[in-house]
Each structure stands twice: as structure tokens, then as C-alpha cells.
């Protein structure tokens, strides 16, 4: 008997024959999810007071596991596919994981990790999500169904017309958001796997008439470069996970003129902060002055601080997440220009060139604006004279162009538009720039 508010109780209100999850090899209806739950009911009921970790390389399995286990365990710990062993052991101890669970042909499998008890008083399942650790070691954050669904729109009737494309990993905050938004509205989620190429992912989305995709700006840049993207009929575009600059927004407007385009500010710590839908980079200064919905924003020493009315999430390590006024320091640097707030990069991600700070994102956006390149990654390279120098890897927008000429043009363009210490010391031309499973540029 399912009684508590959970994904499964929500699924029971959705027309049974609607498709819920579609992968390259399988179609799963909402009814199928309930059947899979029923099949494993006995084992699931034994997990009522347990903490479990889900660790699977298949996004499809993760989606199913979440759907059948939420509400039926004390804690679900999300383990990244590419986790380092030292973090895995730390996570299991910190989150007191009893079992690692997986699915084998829809049958639940348990692997014992710990067999000591822990008293947890939470009624709803805690969702323990690791931060992406882009610039520091990842931390575990406790969320609940409530904190994760604050901004999720539940409209089962409208939801029928949405076919989502999943580009993120489900164990990340961004992937969980897409999964919950899709499943709680009774929409269809097309699942690409992390080992798919961009073309494979786009073709899967196009073949399944996907009309709404949430992805990072880096992922969208790759979509725009892929000839397969001409088969996509997108009505809604969401960008998140990285800074959305005007160049990518304009390029998306040109390619998908009819689409609604929204960029979202969210993080594993904050949850969803706010959405910007005026197709411009940054966000209105009015959000800082008046607040936006339930969120208050402050800028202290050029850093963005966010406070939401609900303070449900916390670091599992018990480190303090909030300041005295209840604000979270996002670590994102911003600047105000003409009544608009623009993101400059991560405070911890800056490059120190002989004592001067350079934010890679600032240089990346300028280079993208030149129109000469499609992708760029700016990073620090150790240097015996300056400590570090700024290096840039680029992918040319026109592969047939003379590399030497383009480099010369780019150096000139950067010299004219940047302080000298921000100008890349070296520009390397590559065929593509690697992105992580979460669609972000790989930064070390």
C-alpha cells in the first residue's frame, strides 16, 4: 500500500497508457512503472528504514529506480557514474548507506554496504545529491521531494503535449529537475545515455518528436554545429548549468525562431533560483531590488547570494550552508551594467596571471562573440615567469579556414578588447572541446 506523498503516488494520478520514459531500446508507460514497483514490492518494503545508494551507468535504470523507491526508503544517495573511489567510500560513510541498489531486467538487486542502524526521523525520503565539484571537491546535499519540486509545474493535461529530451545525468540536480518536471506532469521523457555522441542524442530526440530540451550552453553549441539538428522541432529551450551569454542565446533564436527560450539559475545548493525569459544574458537588476517570486537576491563584494523562503536543504557534512541572514553564497561572481546583472564566472575558478585575476568565462564569451569559433575553453597553464598564463582551446566555426590567419585575427581581436593579461598566450585549434556527462566544459 502506497500512502506517503511520493513520485509513485503522483504517477497513480496520470493516465496509465501515456508513455513515461523512452530510450533507444525501450518504451515504458506510466502503468509499466507501477507494474515494476508491484513486481518488487516485497523487497522495496524491507527498505522502509534504510538508506540506499543508486549507482548505475544507465540513465533509464536510474529513472526507474527513483520512481519506484522514492517514498519507500529513508534516504536515496545519488552516486555519479564517474566517481573517484576515495569519494565513494566517503559518501557511503557520511550518508550511512545500507545498500547499493540496482535493476537487473526490472528486478531490484541489493548489495549490502553497512548493516548498522541509524535513526532518521524524516518522513519523506531524503534525496542526497552530490555537487558537481566543477572547481572544488564535491559535497553531499540533502534535498527532499518538496525542495526539489518547488518550481515544478504540475499540469497533467498540458503535460501530455510535452516530450522532453534528457541531456543531463539523472544523478545531478539538473537531471533530477528535468526528470521530475517530466514525470510529475505526465509528460514523456526521451532518455539519451551519457556515452551517446551528440548526433546520436539529437537523432534520438528528433525521431521521438522531442519538443522541449534543457541543456547547458556548451551542449547547445554542439547541437547548433550538428547537421542532425535540422531535424529537431523544438518549442521550448532551457539553458542551465553554465552561464548563458548573448551569443548562444542569439544563435538559438536564429535557429529556432519560434521557440520559447529560458535560462535558469540553479545549483545543487540553492535549488532553482530564478528563470530569465527575455532572451537576454544575465538577469534584471529588479530581481535584486524586489526579489523574484520566493527568492531574495543580494550582491556582496561582487558575489551572488540567494535566499529562498524554504530552507530545507543542508550539507550532509553539517558544514554551514547559510549566512546569518539565511542567504547562501553561490560563489558566482557578477557585475551590474545598465540595470542588468551579468555573471562573470566562479570565484574559485579564476586564473592568477602574475597577480591579476582572470575569469575564464569572460575570455570565452568574448572569443565566442568574434564569430570565428564555435566552441572555446579557456584555462590556466603553469608558467615559470608569471605563475600562470591564459590558454585557449578553440573549435573553428569554419573548419576550412586557414588556421594561421584565424589565430592572427583572434589575437588582434583579443588585444583590442581585453586587458593584456587576459589575452590568451596560446591558442590551440581542436576538432572538439570535451564536455562532462552533465554537459559542462571539463575544467580541472
Amino acid at each position, binding site marked *: 500500500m502506497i500512502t506517503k506523498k511520493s513520485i509513485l503516488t503522483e504517477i497513480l494520478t496520470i493516465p496509465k497508457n501515456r508513455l513515461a520514459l523512452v530510450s533507444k531500446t525501450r518504451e515504458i508507460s506510466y502503468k509499466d512503472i507501477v507494474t515494476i514497483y508491484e513486481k518488487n514490492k516485497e523487497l522495496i518494503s524491507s527498505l522502509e528504514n534504510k538508506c540506499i545508494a543508486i549507482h548505475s551507468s544507465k540513465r533509464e535504470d536510474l529513472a526507474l529506480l527513483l520512481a519506484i523507491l522514492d517514498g519507500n526508503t529513508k534516504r536515496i544517495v545519488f552516486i555519479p557514474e564517474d566517481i573517484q573511489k576515495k569519494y565513494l567510500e566517503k559518501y557511503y560513510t557520511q550518508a550511512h548507506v545500507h545498500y547499493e541498489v540496482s535493476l537487473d531486467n526490472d528486478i531490484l538487486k541489493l548489495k549490502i554496504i553497512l548493516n548498522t542502524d541509524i535513526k532518521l526521523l524524516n518522513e519523506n525520503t531524503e534525496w542526497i545529491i552530490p555537487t558537481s565539484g566543477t572547481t572544488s571537491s564535491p559535497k553531499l546535499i540533502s534535498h527532499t521531494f518538496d525542495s526539489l519540486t518547488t518550481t515544478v509545474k504540475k499540469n497533467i493535461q498540458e503535460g501530455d503535449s510535452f516530450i522532453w529530451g534528457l541531456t543531463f545525468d539523472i544523478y545531478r540536480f539538473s537531471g533530477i529537475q528535468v526528470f521530475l518536471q517530466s514525470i510529475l506532469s505526465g509528460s514523456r521523457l526521451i532518455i539519451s545515455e551519457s556515452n551517446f555522441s551528440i548526433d546520436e542524442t539529437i537523432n534520438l530526440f528528433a525521431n521521438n518528436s522531442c519538443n522541449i530540451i534543457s541543456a547547458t550552453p556548451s551542449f547547445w553549441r554542439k547541437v547548433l554545429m550538428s547537421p542532425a539538428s535540422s531535424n529537431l522541432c523544438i518549442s521550448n529551450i532551457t539553458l542551465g548549468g553554465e552561464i548563458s551569454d548573448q551569443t548562444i542565446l542569439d544563435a538559438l533564436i536564429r535557429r529556432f525562431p519560434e521557440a520559447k527560450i529560458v535560462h535558469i539559475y540553479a545549483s545543487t545548493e540553492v535549488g532553482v533560483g530564478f528563470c530569465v525569459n527575455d532572451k537576454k544574458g544575465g538577469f534584471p537588476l529588479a530581481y535584486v531590488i524586489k526579489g523574484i517570486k520566493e527568492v531574495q537576491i543580494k550582491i556582496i563584494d561582487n558575489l551572488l547570494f540567494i535566499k529562498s523562503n524554504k530552507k530545507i536543504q543542508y550539507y550532509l557534512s553539517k558544514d554551514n550552508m547559510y549566512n546569518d541572514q539565511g542567504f547562501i553564497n553561490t560563489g558566482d561572481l557578477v557585475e551590474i551594467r545598465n540595470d542588468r546583472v551579468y555573471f562573470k564566472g566562479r570565484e574559485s575558478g579564476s586564473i592568477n*596571471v*602574475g597577480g591579476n585575476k582572470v575569469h575564464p568565462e569572460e575570455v570565452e564569451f568574448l572569443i565566442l562573440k568574434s564569430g570565428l569559433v564555435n566552441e572555446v575553453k579557456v584555462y590556466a597553464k603553469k608558467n*615559470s615567469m608569471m605563475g600562470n*598564463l591564459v590558454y585557449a582551446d578553440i573549435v573553428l566555426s569554419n573548419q576550412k579556414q586557414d588556421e594561421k590567419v584565424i589565430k592572427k585575427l583572434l589575437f588582434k581581436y583579443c588585444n583590442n578588447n581585453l586587458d*593584456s*593579461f587576459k589575452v590568451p*598566450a596560446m591558442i590551440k585549434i581542436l576538432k572538439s572541446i570535451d564536455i562532462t556527462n552533465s554537459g559542462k566544459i571539463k575544467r580541472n
Partner: protein
Amino acid sequence: MNIEKTIEKIFFEVLEQTDSKLLVDTLHDDVLLLESGLDSLGFAILVATLEDELDYDPFSMMKNAIYPSTYGEFVRIYKEMYPKK
């Protein structure tokens, strides 16, 4: 490979890359580095570019760093620190 010629070639390339100009009539051994037209950032770029070309950075190989003041000293350091195979 002629180290001296490579350094000279890259020196002029970095001048152009950094939008700088040679401030002396000709580049010779007695030219003071910081009066040559490249500033300290320009030198850092020169060293990085030379490492890319020659596969070694003499300044990171030194136990006690020596900073050359003339162009001649700079070239000599590259010659002296050339890795023996």
C-alpha cells in the same frame, strides 16, 4: 636545430601576437630584455611558446632561478639548459 634562430623567430612572432613593437634598431646580445619591446607578460608568453616549440622550459628546470637581463643571456640559458639526450 638552431636554438638561436628559433628564439629569434619566436621573439618576433610574440611581438606581433602581443601587438608590441621592437624598441631597438636590431635585436642583438646586449639588448636589455625589458627595453626590447616585450614586457614581462610578453616574456612569459615567449617562454611558453618556446617550450611548445623546443619541448623544454629552462627556467622551470633550474634549481635556483636565474633571470636574464640581456637578450644574449636569455639565449645562453636556452643553449646551456638544452636537455642532453
